[in-house]
């Protein structure tokens, strides 16, 4: 069965989005050998049964604690999985850091610009179309707590594609492989 990993930093609304998508069919699991909990659910998305996994929040793919280690390992083990990278739109910069790291791993991905309402209220303006063009993966504004944008997010999962770091760097005029 196809797997969908919900990844993002902490407090960006991963679990809210998860609960919205998975509804009641949720099982709470423990990653073997650790005490980090995560939830799994089965849903039908775009006419296909998939397993969605609420991955523990991680700031980056360089793990600093157990929960982050689990997150990174899950991403590495599920090579075929589709990743939904959830970003807090009001704190987009640090969210994009993780998004780019996931793109570097070469996973097919969609980006959910969550908390779109919060960003709007604090005068953060984001050109989602332009971002989509730069990243080369679908970018969808969402408000998970109210269910806004989720339909589109699911529809756009069909278009999920691995982004290409080289192309992204070309567009933003930077050099690849330099950190910080």
């Amino acid at each position, binding site marked *: 069965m196809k797997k969908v990993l919900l990844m993002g930093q902490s407090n960006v609304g991963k679990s809210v989005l998860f609960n919205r998508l998975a509804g009641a069919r949720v099982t709470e699991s423990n990653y073997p050998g650790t005490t980090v909990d995560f939830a799994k659910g089965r849903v039908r998305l775009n006419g296909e049964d998939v397993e969605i996994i609420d991955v523990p929040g991680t700031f980056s793919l360089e793990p600093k604690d157990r929960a982050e280690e689990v997150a990174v390992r899950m991403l590495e083990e599920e090579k075929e999985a589709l990743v939904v990278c959830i970003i807090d739109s009001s704190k987009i910069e640090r969210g994009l850091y993780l998004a780019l790291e996931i793109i570097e791993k070469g996973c097919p991905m969609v980006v959910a610009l969550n908390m779109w309402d919060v960003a709007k209220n604090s005068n953060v303006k984001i050109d989602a179309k332009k971002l989509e063009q730069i990243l080369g993966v679908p970018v969808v504004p969402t408000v998970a707590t109210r269910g806004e944008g989720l339909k589109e997010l699911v529809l756009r999962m069909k278009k999920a594609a691995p982004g290409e770091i080289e192309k992204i760097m070309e567009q933003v005029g930077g050099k690849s492989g330099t950190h*910080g």
Partner: protein
Amino acid sequence: MEKKLSQMKYEEKGRIKEIDQSLRTKVAGMGIREGKQVEMMTKQPIKGPVVVSIDRTNTSLGLGLADKIIVEVEG
């Protein structure tokens, strides 16, 4: 004036000038990188963490980390 992030005073603002190589990737995911504007929010006593505001986000940093970040302080 340059000082360590850990030496900044309450409500002091500045721009990050240098981050020790060893923790660059460690803090990048938290939105901390060179050139970023920071404001000191709180300092916890007894060698506790410092809380700084970056991009309207309050981020808490251990004193060990804050010691290795150099900030150009305003004024």
